[in-house]
């Protein structure tokens, strides 16, 4: 037994020692914990950890296999995302005890705070006294046992799993119902209680999902697809798009879902031009070797940075929205071009990890597929707050794409229309977020950059929060970003254009004098090297491409990504459709596209008179439209418009 004294050692070092004890198989006793946060996070070995006192937020979070005992109370997020292993708390637990657990056994002798077991997937959360508001909120599986009273709205929006209540059920949450309990279930509960020496005499009420909200009542009828160029045409009213929209809504009686990005004309980087005439760009055959493009992202606070051969990344896109083959092709291409790939929502498959040399692992509110093991093999961790295509909404994956394999990785029931939570259970403000960021750093030993993916909304405030909460970089996503599935109204009408997003973000950082304390990766409808250079001139540190890499790999832009029957085998989980996609070939296509981006960046940078992309600046740009000039405060120079076609011929 190793004794660790938190009165003498900061939590960060204590956690390093606890993990080292784990590797040696030695048990640990933590004294003077004084309710400090993050005790034991990231531990993945089967040892006993005894906390002699109270623990703070995220005690035993992001762990696997260890057995924790806490003599008194714990704060929010007890056992966050815990796989196997157990926690026994002798006192009370704060809000969201057992959040997102994946198999752990958690026992709280006292009361539990609000939203216990939120988005849990498997395992048992047991409270020997009373639970508070919304126990089992949005749970996907597993079992909650409450020996006392349930609190209000028990089982609110639960998808699966069971809640057993020994005391009063005050009232049921939305889409929850009481059902009969069988004797085998009771025996199993009693065996569990015996194992943890919890006496109980009485009967249980069983709360389960009522099944009224798991699937849309009517599925969307598949229509003849409209080509994207018609879809975004200039016929203003009552065009075929509007007709189709009205017709479909007359059938389904709700909002529509589609894939791809916004189709409205918005001010964008294409409304900017280079101040210098770059018509001669590209004359130099060796330009790629002459311009410095190597960029490190994420290292400013001491983490191991992502090493990018050019200031470009792959934007987050999930395995789920995209087929495994497509994720493999994108990953391989990212490795071939020396840039970073991103998992998007829904977990990390072995295939993705093998294909991409540098892989950012994204964490969303539903914690679908989130776990300590994949965190440890990632090259960066990313907290998703929202995305440009649909700020404020969670991901959507229609039942057709939720295969048994995907359901397993994500830890959800197979065959539901998955509407991921739009909020994180443990991030309700900047004050909670800072503790969450710290948890990730603690769990992975401060090795990995931690970024925030942010759809442009209240950018000025959000960016300030991001820098104050200590993120290493922001993936800032504008309204022109695409999605695998979103409400069509939201895609077209909600959000802030990418151009406005970067300007507001930089203004906010300037206002508080913190520009050097965070890096910005801009995305959202950026298409090629020309767009990339403009973004760098405006002040981004790097850019990310999503849609253009998918197009490079064969996407025909039919916008039916959500349906699951993608004819190119990209946005599908149907093996018959996926057969049409050849990852090795498409990886080469995507790689060649990325190399064209590299060449464009180099050629324009050189034509603007620089030998390093870091020298690009605002003075290299002018605005072609009054709107773009207003947004960017660049000089309005409409006559430059005539130069734009020439540039496109020469470069591209």
């Amino acid at each position, binding site marked *: 037994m190793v004794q660790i004294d938190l009165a003498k050692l900061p939590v960060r070092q204590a956690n390093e020692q606890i993990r080292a004890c784990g590797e040696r198989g030695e048990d640990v006793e933590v004294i003077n914990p004084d309710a400090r946060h993050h005790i034991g996070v990231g531990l993945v070995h089967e040892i006993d950890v005894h906390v002699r006192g*109270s623990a703070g937020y995220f005690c035993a979070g992001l762990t696997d296999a260890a057995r924790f005992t806490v003599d008194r109370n714990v704060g929010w997020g007890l056992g966050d995302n815990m796989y196997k292993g157990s926690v026994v708390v002798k006192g009370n637990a704060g809000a969201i005890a057992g959040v997102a657990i994946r198999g752990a056994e958690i026992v709280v002798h006292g009361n539990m705070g609000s939203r216990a077991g939120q988005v849990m997937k498997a395992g048992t959360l047991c409270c020997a006294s009373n639970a508070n*508001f919304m126990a089992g909120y949005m749970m996907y599986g597993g079992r909650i046992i409450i020996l006392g009273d349930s609190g209000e709205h028990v089982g609110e929006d639960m998808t699966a799993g069971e809640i057993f209540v020994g005391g009063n059920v005050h009232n049921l949450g939305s889409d929850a119902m009481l059902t009969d309990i069988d004797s085998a279930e009771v025996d199993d509960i009693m065996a569990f209680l015996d194992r943890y020496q919890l006496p109980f005499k009485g009967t249980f009420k069983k709360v389960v999902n009522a099944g009224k909200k798991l699937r849309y009542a009517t599925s969307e009828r598949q229509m003849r697809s409209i080509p994207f160029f018609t879809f975004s045409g200039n016929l203003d009213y009552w065009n075929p798009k509007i007709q189709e929209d009205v017709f479909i809504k007359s059938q389904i009686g709700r909002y529509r879902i589609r894939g791809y990005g916004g189709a409205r004309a918005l001010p964008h980087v294409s409304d900017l031009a280079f101040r210098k005439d770059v018509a001669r760009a590209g004359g130099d055959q060796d330009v790629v070797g002459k311009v410095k493009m190597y960029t490190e992202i994420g290292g400013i606070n001491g983490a191991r940075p992502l090493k990018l051969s050019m200031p470009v990344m792959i934007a987050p896109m999930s395995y789920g929205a995209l087929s495994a083959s497509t994720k493999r092709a994108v990953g391989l291409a990212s490795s071939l071009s020396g840039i970073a790939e991103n998992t998007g929502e829904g977990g990390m498959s072995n295939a993705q990890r093998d294909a991409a040399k540098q892989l950012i692992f994204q964490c969303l509110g539903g914690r679908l597929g989130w776990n300590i093991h994949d965190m440890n093999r990632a090259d960066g961790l990313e907290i998703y707050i929202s995305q440009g295509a649909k700020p404020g909404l969670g991901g959507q994956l229609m039942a057709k794409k939720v295969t048994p394999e995907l359901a397993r990785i994500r830890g959800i029931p197979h065959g539901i229309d998955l509407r991921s939570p739009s909020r994180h259970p443990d991030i309700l403000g900047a004050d909670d977020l800072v*503790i969450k960021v710290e948890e990730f750093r603690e769990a992975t030993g401060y090795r990995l950059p931690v970024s925030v993916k942010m759809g442009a909304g209240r950018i000025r405030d959000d960016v300030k929060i991001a820098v104050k909460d200590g993120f290493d970089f922001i993936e800032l996503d504008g309204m022109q970003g695409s999605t695998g599935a979103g409400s069509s109204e939201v895609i077209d009408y909600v959000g802030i254009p990418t151009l406005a997003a970067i300007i507001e973000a930089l203004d906010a950082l300037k*206002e508080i004098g913190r520009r050097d304390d965070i890096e910005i990766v801009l995305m959202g409808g950026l298409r090629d090297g020309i767009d990339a250079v403009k973004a760098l001139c405006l002040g981004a540190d790097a850019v990310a491409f999503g849609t253009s890499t998918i197009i490079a790999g064969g996407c025909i832009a039919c916008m039916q990504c959500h349906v699951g029957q993608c004819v190119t085998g990209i946005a599908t989980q149907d093996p018959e459709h996926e057969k049409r996609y050849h990852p090795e070939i498409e990886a080469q296509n995507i790689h060649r596209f990325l190399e064209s981006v590299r060449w464009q960046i180099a050629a324009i940078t050189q034509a603007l008179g620089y030998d390093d992309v870091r020298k690009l600046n605002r003075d290299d740009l002018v605005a072609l439209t009054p709107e773009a000039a207003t947004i960017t405060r660049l000089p309005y120079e409409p006559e430059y418009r005539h130069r734009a076609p020439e540039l496109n011929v020469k470069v591209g």
Partner: protein
Amino acid sequence: MCGIAGIMFKGDRDTYETGKALISMLDGCQHRGPDSTGFALYGHASERRLRLRFLIGERDDESEIIGRIKGMLAKHGARIIEDEIVGANYRVTVEFDGDLQKFAYDMEHVARVVSIGSSLEIIKDVGGAHDVDERYHVHDFRGTHGLGHVRLATESDVKPEAAHPFWATGFEDVAIVHNGQITNYWKMRRRLEQRGFEFITDNDSELIAVYLADKLAKGVSLQDALKTSIEDLDGTFSFLVSTKDEIGYAKDRLAAKPMIMYENDDLIAVASEEVSLNRLFPGQALDTKEPPPGTYATWSRSI
């Protein structure tokens, strides 16, 4: 975007080390708000005496502002007993016996008022708990009870006047600290403005202070004012309020913001996180309680 703390000593002295206690508690949760720190401290109250604190920034012409303050004090017949400059504050004790709301608004029109009270003093500035203590000697403060706050600024700038606690302008000895966001802010504010209340900032926490003070001035008990606040205010909140002899809390119905409390024979302490409570009792496992959503309570020194 913050952390809150409150403490009340139960004994009948007015010389408890409230300053030191709140500094420790706020240092314990400084991670929740690194931008600014503030204290509402209650000490010995004297009959007909008011203590006023004004903010005099570095750019201001100190003597000119103090001149304006003195002019307005004289106009209201307030006799200066002592005055000094501490940190970025001009602190003055006066003898006054008139209409406080009119007096307070007039003072606010000539300078930036931090607090006015017979026993309350608010100290707030940019930086952490220890930074503010160094500038204002908070650790020397002895009294009966107090509130504290650490802030991460988003909507408003990092300025001392946007820091918490908020004084309920025009109402003697009422202060609040708040963690959360009031979403029907403008609706509530307009309602109060129509009835003649003035707001100094656009911070939603000031609204809570004015809302509660308005109720108290109408003779509503603090308990009942807290009860209606849960109905009337929309959004996410955990807040603490203090008056000359009470502290109280209210928590929204969604339980979106944390709050935890500890009580023993000597004191009551409330904070955003248990780690702050443990700062008062290092090495001890505390028997704490988390207030349920949609609840409120008060503690009074007279009981």
